[in-house]
């Protein structure tokens, strides 16, 4: 057993008093998650799928759940509310009803009832979440909702990692033909370097439609490990947008399973790394049945000494005839010491499929740069504009206008360009 798992077990034992919620079943579930984690061990950088993640950052983390805060962050410190969209706020993993909209039919916050444990590969951080999470938000939508439901969940980090971790948890269950737009945000309320291990589970029944935006805007000292697993039934549509600009180190592990025929998955990811940030995304998409579709778009920019990685693996199982998968993965090196790792992987176990992939990692397009220079724009402005343009394939998929504006402002800020705001 490694020292790290030792420490986790010790922290688990010492957290027992705060991990009593949810009754006997929950307590047992947490124990099971811990046991599974102990058996598997946390990944190391020797693991093929973890070599880009900054696992060293775990050394300074304390795993006990951070205590609830005494004062909630003021509304002014949070992103502006989006019109007509109910907001739910969690601080360091604890539900903050005072800062949230009223819970309603289909939206329940409750003590985590740990489930059967993570099942797909490389969900070890989800186990960590299950062992330590206290509160979680459960969203259950059925087709009786007259209009597509729109919700925003804010996971605010404020505790310093040395004082404990934050374990945000979200479970989304869409009944047949239910529709939901979900905005999930991770942000910091203090300058503290927080340690966050979040887990999201999505279950979309036949014909359900989920538009899921995840914005990762943590401060530059925080560490995030998140795991998202989703299962799509027949004709379910899941459009997942990940926009990552924050954190010192962020690793996203996505396990997405197309389990029903004609299910459709769209994964659009934009990550920006600067300074010494590490942004690592690992996505496994499993086509288990016939005629399902996947489209993956990744655009990553690494500046300064940042490292940005995207590893997109698509597995087409033997019965999955007529699979259609497309990967367009592009990385942009914006600094001589920056690093981009873009890797498409295909594992195909039948013949009748259409799988295309393109992956590039490079510098700004010379033809575009010259075009802008020939119009008198100075080189620095032209380069920033082109970085902006590079992200367009992902940003243009954000159909919720006020959210798109917030995302663009955030990106403009990350690209250090006030002038870019004019574009908005």
């Amino acid at each position, binding site marked *: 057993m490694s020292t790290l798992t030792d420490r986790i077990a010790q922290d688990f034992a010492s957290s027992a008093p705060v991990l009593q919620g949810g009754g006997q079943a929950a307590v047992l579930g947490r124990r099971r998650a811990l046991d599974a984690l102990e058996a598997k061990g946390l990944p190391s950088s020797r693991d093929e799928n973890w070599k880009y993640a900054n696992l060293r950052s775990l050394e300074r983390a304390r795993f006990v759940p951070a205590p609830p805060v005494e004062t909630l962050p003021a509304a002014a410190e949070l992103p502006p509310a989006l019109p007509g969209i109910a907001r739910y706020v969690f601080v360091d993993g604890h539900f903050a009803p005072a800062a949230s909209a009223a819970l309603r039919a289909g939206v329940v916050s409750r003590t985590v009832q740990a489930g059967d444990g993570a099942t797909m590969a490389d969900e070890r951080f989800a186990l960590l979440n299950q062992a330590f999470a206290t509160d979680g938000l459960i969203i259950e939508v059925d087709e009786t909702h007259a209009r597509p439901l729109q919700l925003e969940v804010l996971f605010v980090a404020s505790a310093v990692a040395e004082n404990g971790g934050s374990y945000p948890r979200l479970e989304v269950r869409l009944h047949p033909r239910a529709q939901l737009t979900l905005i999930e945000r991770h942000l910091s309320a203090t300058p503290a370097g927080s340690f966050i291990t979040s887990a999201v589970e999505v279950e979309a029944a036949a014909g359900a439609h989920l538009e899921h935006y995840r914005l990762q805007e943590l401060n530059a000292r925080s560490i995030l490990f998140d795991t998202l697993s989703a299962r799509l039934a027949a004709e379910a549509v899941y459009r997942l947008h990940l926009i990552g600009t924050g954190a010192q180190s962020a690793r996203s592990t996505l396990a997405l399973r197309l389990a029903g025929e004609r299910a459709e998955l769209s994964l659009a990811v934009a990550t920006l790394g600067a300074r010494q940030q590490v942004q690592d995304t690992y996505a496994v998409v499993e086509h288990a049945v016939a005629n399902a579709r996947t489209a993956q778009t990744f655009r990553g920019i690494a500046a300064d000494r940042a490292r940005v990685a995207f590893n997109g693996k698509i597995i087409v199982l033997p019965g999955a005839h007529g699979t259609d998968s497309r990967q367009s993965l592009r990385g942009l090196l914006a600094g001589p010491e920056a690093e981009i790792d873009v890797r498409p992987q295909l594992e195909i176990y039948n013949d009748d499929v259409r799988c295309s992939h393109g992956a590039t990692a490079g510098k700004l397009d010379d033809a*575009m740069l010259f075009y802008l220079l020939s*119009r*008198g*724009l100075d080189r620095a402005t032209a380069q920033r504009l082109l970085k902006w*343009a590079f992200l367009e394939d992902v940003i243009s998929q954000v159909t919720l206008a006020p959210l798109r504006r917030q995302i663009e402002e955030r990106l403009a800020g990350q690209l250090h360009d006030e002038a870019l705001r004019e*574009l908005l």
Partner: protein
Amino acid sequence: MGERESSMLSIKGLSVTVDGKPIINGLNLEVGAGEVHAIMGPNGSGKSTLAYVLAGRPGYTVTAGTVHYLGQDLLALPPEERARRGLFLGFQYPVEIPGVNNVYLLKAAVNAVRTVHGLPEVDAFDFLGLVREKMKLMHMEDSFLSRAVNEGFSGGEKKRNEILQMLVLEPRLAILDETDSGLDIDALKVVAAGVNSQRAPDRSCVLVTHYQRLLEYVVPDYVHVLVRGRIARSGDRTLALELERRGYDFIAGEAA
């Protein structure tokens, strides 16, 4: 008026290589203020190379000769500085830039020029009015305003967009690289009207073209024929008509 004062562009003994291969070989050209010059020539004669070298595109090595623009050493200036001093290149293949709005680019370009002249940035509202007016001249639809630079434009739309940029920027010297290629006759007339509207005593234009068709609508003061990287013959517009009749071979034969 002395030669220097009226000189817009003066090219002397220019030689250019691309990847070590000579493309332009000792080219001389004088363009005076207010003049329109057409540069014609067969494919591979160096027409586009000349246009790119003047605009400052990387990848072209000047091995000999000088280029003066308004009395300044043009080759010493980076491309953005050339543009700010009033040199404009209309691209043969305008570049698509998804995510960058047309109007934003136009405004940034105009402000870049204004900064050089110590002028304040344009008023956004007035500017939009000016752009709309020029768009009307180019028969462009309003939707253009909200689109990204050349993204999804047809070939003709891209060329009209180049001319629109020229109309808004009002350059001293416009170099139009095969702006006529790929245009149908109606689009050609629109483009020609745009170019003609720019003719003025203090402004010059170099039209690079393969065919003489455009020259029916934009009548040049001089026509030059480029063969193997140098000007093989110069004349007035009748030279273009002769080329149309006899093809480039007769000049290529003479120049050999």
